[in-house]
């Protein structure tokens, strides 16, 4: 039944072309229901990135480039579809042989493990590996252990004493029948999506409980990492134990080898791909190369939609943005058209006016901060700034003339946006300046309430398609941790009403996804009325392929699927 669904889905998808816009018709992906890794299999895929993507431990690393590599090396019980499709598509079964059974109003989830799956070492996958991997999330101090998995029964104990983590009563497995049952302390409609995220991949049970660093543990995917040196390159080759079980969850790989080299400037990488020295680069194409690519390499450019948002967090506990009118004025005054231009123009960016990005579940257009709109009467989309309204609000707030510092990462794209915001604030009568820091410092710096950052410019990508990734993670009362470098609610904003709506949305979504999404949209409007942030823009990811690459290589969550590259 599920198979049928997957197959028909693929057909529908390939007919429509999905969310991916490419100008060339791709002969290799003619729909016949399954992928045929026949004619273009083989060859060495050459990838490049500016810097190494961090630890090779899949349960620790949170950086997108490594998650992309791990997508073709590891599997979880669930995964995200490795094919183009709508942004809001939820997780699909991977090592589980079907969608999980939901009991107890979403407090209990029952999975059945697929049979005859082997790790790249030749070891058979069993439920023991699943249980051990879930424990390992805590033992290895995975960043998502707290936010995503501590509601498994026994999870909060594991969080405090990882060494003695058992998850007794929380993860119950039956090795004979191959069932795994998760018991949660409260209902969670997003649990399958969380299991699909990279940190919940299944590793052999004897994997070390320390960060494995440069040594990638064995996985079940079509490739295995044979060597990794963050200062030069990573090499992957086929996992000979891999047999394709589901082309949507984990398709078989085309290239025989993958070489990923680090340490080149993005400008050089573009040139190298144009000249055929590499097939793909991890970074977005630099903006000044876009016209060149659009002109001469049209068929090799892919524009990928993904869930992201650039925004400025306003500190609601420090003047002047402890004043609601000042925050609203800032929101009215920002020219989001300029933000779009700073991000490469209308072909690759759209103005953002709310915290949930377009395409995500729970997104319902409601722009309060455009000319003629108001919190009680939102417009369907942003049109132009309303300087009169903004000036009026500033006068009422009495905050004009105060000093405001915008803290921005030091990359050119962010700096351009920060300078635009500075100009806007100056027009509103503030004495505004920009302070830039290397991104590695800026991100923890702006989160710590001790640093009293007034405006923090930042961006956010979703781990999985859910409104909670934006609203709950970035703006709920419980994600504000004063005096900590890890407090994603940079605004320090707490709206009990919005929190209540979010809790309701969760509870309702267990039974009725659509009704839940409406409640998320309501929470979004409630939060935006308080204007704790200034949403700026949502971008599309521009990537360039070498001339020898064929095939549909993009997917919403991972953005790119290395196993799908067919090399001529």
């Amino acid at each position: 039944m599920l198979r049928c669904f997957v197959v028909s889905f693929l057909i529908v998808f390939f007919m429509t072309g999905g969310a991916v816009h490419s100008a060339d018709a791709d002969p290799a992906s003619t729909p016949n229901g399954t992928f045929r890794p026949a004619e273009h299999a083989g060859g060495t895929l050459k990838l490049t990135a500016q810097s190494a993507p961090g630890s090779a431990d899949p349960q620790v690393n949170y950086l997108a480039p490594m998650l992309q590599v791990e997508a073709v090396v590891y599997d979880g019980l669930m995964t995200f579809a490795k094919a183009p499709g709508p942004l809001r598509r939820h997780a699909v079964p991977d090592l589980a042989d079907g969608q999980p059974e939901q009991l107890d109003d979403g407090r209990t989830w029952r999975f059945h493990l697929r049979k005859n799956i082997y790790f790249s070492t030749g070891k058979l996958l069993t439920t023991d590996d699943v249980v051990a991997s879930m424990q390992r999330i805590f033992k290895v101090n995975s960043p998502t252990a707290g936010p995503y998995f501590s509601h498994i029964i026994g999870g909060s104990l594991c969080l405090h004493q990882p060494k003695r983590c058992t998850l007794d009563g929380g993860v119950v497995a039956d090795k004979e029948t191959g069932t795994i049952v998760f018991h949660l302390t409260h209902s969670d409609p997003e649990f399958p999506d969380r299991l699909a995220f990279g940190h919940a991949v299944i590793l052999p049970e004897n994997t070390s409980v320390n960060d494995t660093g440069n040594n990638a543990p064995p996985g079940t995917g079509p490739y295995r990492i044979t060597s990794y040196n963050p200062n030069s390159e990573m090499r992957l080759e086929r996992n000979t134990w891999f047999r394709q079980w589901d082309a949507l969850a984990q398709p078989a790989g085309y290239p025989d080898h993958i070489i990923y080299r680090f340490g080149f400037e993005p400008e050089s990488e573009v040139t190298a791909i144009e000249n055929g020295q590499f097939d793909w680069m991890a970074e977005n194409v630099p903006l000044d190369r876009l016209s060149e690519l659009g002109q001469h390499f049209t068929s090799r450019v892919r524009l990928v939609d993904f869930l992201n948002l650039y925004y400025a967090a306003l500190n609601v506990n420090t003047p002047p943005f402890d004043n609601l009118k000042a925050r609203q004025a800032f929101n009215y005054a920002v020219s989001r058209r300029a933000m779009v231009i700073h991000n490469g123009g209308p072909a690759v960016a759209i103005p953002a006016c709310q915290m949930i990005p377009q395409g995500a579940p729970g997104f319902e257009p409601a722009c309060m901060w455009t000319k003629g709109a108001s919190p009680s009467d939102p417009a369907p989309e942003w049109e132009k700034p309303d300087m009169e309204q903004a000036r009026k609000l500033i006068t009422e707030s009495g905050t004009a003339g105060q000093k405001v510092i915008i803290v921005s990462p030091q990359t050119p794209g962010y700096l351009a946006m920060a300078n635009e915001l500075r100009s806007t604030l100056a027009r509103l009568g503030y004495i505004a300046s920009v302070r830039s820091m290397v991104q590695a410092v800026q991100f923890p710096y702006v989160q710590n309430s001790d640093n009293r950052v007034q405006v923090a410019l930042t961006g956010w990508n979703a781990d999985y398609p859910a409104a909670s990734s934006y609203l709950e993670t970035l703006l709920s009362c419980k994600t504000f941790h004063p005096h900590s470098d890890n407090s994603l609610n940079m605004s320090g904003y707490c709206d009990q009403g919005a929190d209540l709506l979010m809790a309701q949305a969760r509870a309702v979504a267990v039974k009725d996804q659509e009704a839940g999404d409406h409640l998320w949209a309501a929470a979004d409007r409630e939060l935006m009325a308080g204007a704790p942030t200034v949403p700026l823009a949502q971008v599309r990811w521009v990537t360039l392929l070498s001339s020898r690459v064929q095939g549909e290589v993009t997917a919403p969550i991972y953005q790119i699927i290395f196993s799908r590259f067919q090399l001529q």
Partner: protein
Amino acid sequence: MISSSGQTTAGPWVQATRALISNRSAMSCLGVLLLVILLCVFAPFYAHHIARTDPFISNVAGTLTVNGQETDIMQPNDNPLHLGLSPIGPTWHPRSYLLGADSQGRDLASRLLYGGRNSLLISFSAALLCIIMASAVGISAGFSGGVIDIILSRLMDIMWAVPVYLFAISLSIVTITQGLHIGPITISSNSLLVPIFIIALVYVPYAARPIRGRVMTLRNAEFVLAARSLGVPEYRILLRDILPNILPSVIVLAPLLTALALLAESSLSFLSLGVQAPAASWGTIIQDGEGLIYTRPMVAIAPGLAIIITVMALNIFGDGLRDALDIRETSRRNG
């Protein structure tokens, strides 16, 4: 010394000045230098006539009129995918976007002038500050000798051992994050004092060494030994005998240090560690231009040429000064 025509004795300073004035290449470089300085320093008085936009406010959504036609400053590209926007290129029209716009739609020509103000201000102040600090260090080390000399020299070694940029980068990261606190004085992070201080500090060992060496030679010179044996107090020896005699070495250092400081400033700003946005310097404009080098190379090339012209003029003038003061070339180190 009696001049050949039998006139009264000309002092060494007068002689040096005459030698300098008769050096044509040095004087023409001084002219170039003064021109650059005047152009940049008085930018606020006429730059708005050139740009007619604020060079510090981004203007990506703006338009301008060229030859009676209204065009966008950020011009959309008519490629099949409508990808990308390019800032307007040089119009060669002196009253609007003479050299084109940068990626934020700001007038490049007027930013060059304002950037030059900062670059020059930083390099001259840094050179001055460096000379003051280096003289203090060099004189104390050279004149006192002994333990003080050893400690100061090793401290200089520490600073010199860390390659110039690494040292500057480490300092910049700290100061840019939280500003600089020297006792009760706090320098905010986007103040120009931060790069001035960093560059001055970085080149102290470079300037202190020759000064120390000169002081050590002088300390053992016959006239100093004679003064000492006559019981002249040390501070008088320092003021009357040592200081005037190291002045030429210090003066010769000045233009060379300024040139070095200008290069250092541009490198620091290029690595985003010098002047902070929205203020500009030639280095930050080169960095802005790095992101446009394939579409609008002028943004990176123009400030580079400005740096080369200024540094070259400083170096040639410094050469002339050295010849005039008759001091042998000291070796210099890179960064």
